[in-house]
């Protein structure tokens, strides 16, 4: 789980600019996507942080076997 902050700026003309902070990877699109029906998107871009993967927390005990991949070697 990641804490995020989503800033929605509505300018004097009623146009909307949004930025998502604190979320790495494609999850930020989930938040921004909530406004998809608000209007016509005129600009949509990702920062380098977007392509970063969310860290995976593995809860392993001593002796557990970690298998990466699933194919035959």
């Amino acid at each position, binding site marked *: *789980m*990641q*804490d*995020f*902050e*989503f*800033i*929605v*700026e*509505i*300018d*004097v*003309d*009623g*146009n*909307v*600019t*949004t*930025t*998502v*902070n604190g*979320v*790495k*990877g494609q*999850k*930020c*699109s*989930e*938040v*921004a996507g*909530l*406004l998809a*029906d*608000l*209007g*016509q*998107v*005129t*600009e*949509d*871009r*990702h*920062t380098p*942080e*977007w392509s*970063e993967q969310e860290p995976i927390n593995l809860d392993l005990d001593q002796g557990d076997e970690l298998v990466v991949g699933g194919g035959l070697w």
Partner: protein
Amino acid sequence: MSKYMKMKTQCKIQAHLVAALQASGIKFEQAQAGQTLTMNGYGGVKRQADFVIRKSEIASYGDMGYKWNGSEFDLVADDYAGQRKQEQVIKLISREYAAAFTIAQMEAAGYGWERVDQENGAIQLVVSGRL
């Protein structure tokens, strides 16, 4: 920051348009379901709309309104230079619509939000939550 998006607001949901009209503080009329209201435009031109703000409210030559076109509410208004009050009202309603839409979506998703009104009329909504 990981995502940046700009949007031009379109009024598509009636409940949010009503909320925006109410938030604007300007007196408006709403047509009964399945009916429209007659607008009195400049030079006696008559047009129909679902929501009407009379010209006396906006110091204009004609009424302004919003009419459903099947996918969104179109603005119906006389377009003359110098209708400053009307332009301000249109922008105000657009801002309040965007705010009402955003707040409803974020509350439905279970996120918290805070509204900050800027001196120039712009609105900032700060949404927070966990993903």
